């Protein structure tokens, strides 16, 4: 049994007079102890709502309905009452948010905010708590921790704030950490520091980490398993290497083709996905990605595609997945060839023969020698 088992999670917002929004529409994934699981997708794919629903942090409002299960170590987090959920939150499951400034209380010193967590969940008080807080700040790489304890959030830089937030999150040695775009607001050199820190925490303490991000590069370096979300559903789930080497779902293929790579040459055109996230088909009517998909066939419309599981534990929700190079030669699905492809995009069939568009196939130049 995995540490966290999310099963068919759905979140709907319905308001009178407006269309019901299915922000999360049957998401399932699992996280083992010490594992890093990525939830990847663009804005509006439901990745953040998923994490908030698991944590029970969705703002209570009429019309909000959360369905499915999120079993953490035997208890369904979604069924807990507020009190026991608060107990679990912070102690067993902790969360890191995108914007460290708004997640920290601006009028309370950092130290007090850390000791508060220690007092609540570990019953520590006074000097002991302060000592532990300083040790925590030190652990997350905040220099001169004793002095920082007395400072207010605005006196710290963005990177230091995020470290402080991580210190609070790991204060009680949680078994599961959910990081929602933890580095999006940070500069890239600071991002590198924070990612390195998160990796260390996972490695040293065996904490499971759910990494929510839009950045495929971050995922490539961190996650063991990756779930790609689109319009509220997991469209592809795979281990890290297979996903980047042989993406099956056309959306994953498209995402990878959209990212300019540092190690690609000048002048190579990107292969964007046409249209925008707004052009979705409601899932019950077929594949939500179909309107933008370059591998669209007739079967895409009518009913939602089932999750296809393959031998190596990967899965994709697609009736006409991108072929794995070598294994399915000449699989022709050509009678309904793509439509409205934007200028610059190539037909999907071309992709397996076109190394630069499938990252991982091309000779990846190594980093410049630094020493």
């Amino acid at each position, binding site marked *: 049994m995995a540490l966290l088992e999310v099963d068919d999670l759905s979140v709907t917002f319905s308001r009178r007079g407006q269309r019901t929004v299915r922000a999360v529409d049957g998401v399932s994934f699992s996280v083992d102890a010490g594992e890093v699981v990525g939830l990847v997708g663009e804005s509006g794919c439901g990745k953040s709502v998923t994490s908030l629903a698991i944590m029970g942090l969705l703002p209570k409002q009429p019309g909000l309905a959360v369905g499915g299960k999120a079993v953490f170590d035997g208890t369904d987090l979604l069924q807990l009452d507020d009190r026991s959920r608060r107990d679990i939150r912070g102690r067993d499951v902790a969360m890191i948010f995108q914007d460290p400034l708004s997640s920290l209380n601006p009028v309370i010193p950092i130290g007090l905010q850390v000791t508060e967590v220690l007092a609540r969940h570990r019953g520590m008080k006074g000097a002991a708590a302060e000592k532990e807080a300083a040790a925590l700040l030190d652990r997350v790489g905040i220099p001169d921790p004793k002095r920082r304890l007395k400072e207010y959030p605005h006196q710290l830089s963005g990177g230091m704030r995020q470290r402080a937030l991580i210190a609070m999150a790991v204060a009680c040695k949680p078994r599961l950490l959910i990081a929602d775009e933890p580095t999006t607001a940070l500069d890239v050199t600071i991002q590198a520091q924070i990612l390195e820190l998160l990796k260390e925490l996972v490695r040293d303490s065996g904490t499971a980490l759910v990494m929510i991000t839009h950045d495929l590069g971050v995922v490539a370096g961190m996650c063991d398993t990756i779930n790609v979300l689109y319009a509220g559903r997991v469209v592809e789930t795979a281990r890290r290497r297979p996903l980047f080497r042989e993406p099956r779902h056309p959306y994953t293929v498209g995402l990878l083709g959209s990212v300019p790579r540092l190690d690609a040459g000048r002048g190579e055109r990107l292969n964007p996905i046409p249209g925008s996230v707004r052009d979705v*088909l409601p899932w019950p*009517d077929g594949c939500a990605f179909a309107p933008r998909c370059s591998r669209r066939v007739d079967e895409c419309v009518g009913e939602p595609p089932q999750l296809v599981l393959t031998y190596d534990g990967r899965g994709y929700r697609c009736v006409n997945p991108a072929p794995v190079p070598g294994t399915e030669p000449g699989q022709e699905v050509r009678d309904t060839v793509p439509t*409205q492809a934007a200028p610059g995009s190539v037909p999907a069939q071309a992709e397996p023969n076109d190394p630069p568009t499938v990252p991982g196939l091309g000779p990846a130049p190594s980093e410049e020698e630094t020493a």
Partner: protein
Amino acid sequence: MTITSGKKKQKIDRLAELAARDDERGVSLWQEAFRRLRRNPAAIVGAVILALFVVVAVVGPFLVPYSPTDTIGIRDGLIKPGVIPGIDGDHWLGLDHQGRDEFSRLVVGARQTLLVGVVSTLIGLAVGALIGGVAGAAAGLGGRWGRWIDSTLMRFIDMMLAMPSLLLAVSIAALLGASLTTVMIAVGVVSVPVFARLLRGSMISQANSDYVLAATSLGVRKPKIALTHVVPNSLAPVIVQATLTLATAIIEAAALSFLGLGNPDTSVPEWGVMLADAQQYLDIRPGLAVYPALGIIITALGFTLLGEAMREALDPKLRK
């Protein structure tokens, strides 16, 4: 499959072009705000109250059963010391202490109340927007003179703001002598600083926005940018504030009348005066105080509901 494929493709193409309803015209922000206003129950309640109020104020005086100044009670000998007749078939809300028909007075008083509220708010809006607009434009254009004009105007506004509003209104009313115009001016002046600060602040924040920079980089002249971009985008909060100010203006005008600084022409009934008169007879006929008070409260509520709903509808943060 081959038979249905055409249909399916059609369907999917239609769905793919969900956004491409090219026959429709665009929806401007005001239209969008109005749509959302229409869906907000608070806005509808507020609008209904105000519509009723305006109808009563405009046509009411022509339909009332009695003249509001006719002292029927005294003529008919119904008013005796310690006795004021209550509700009966002829007089729906009874008579007041001078034997005048309370219902008629209430209806005719609505017009006065509306007039004072609207005119004083317009005075406040006009003067405040002028000061705020000049200050905002001066600050936006910058330069030494711009900053000087801006800070001079704003210090003046700060001084006005430092005085309690009712005290300011009372002083002005006392200074100018009691009259209807005085009430309007006094209540209007009180709201000047609010409008001035609001418009200036809004203009300065708009002046720092990217689209103003974009217009500058297009080569548009600064005065034209101020008029075509900055001012129109700064107006939304001012309009909301005007609606909310109508509510306070009505209350303040009533307060001035209550203090005896209202319209000295007693032939025109006014809710504040009616309230003031009624306090001597609270033990005999408390209703005389309740009716005008309710009128003031409900009207102010109507304006507030509508104003708050407008604020919500125009708030860019709540827009999807």
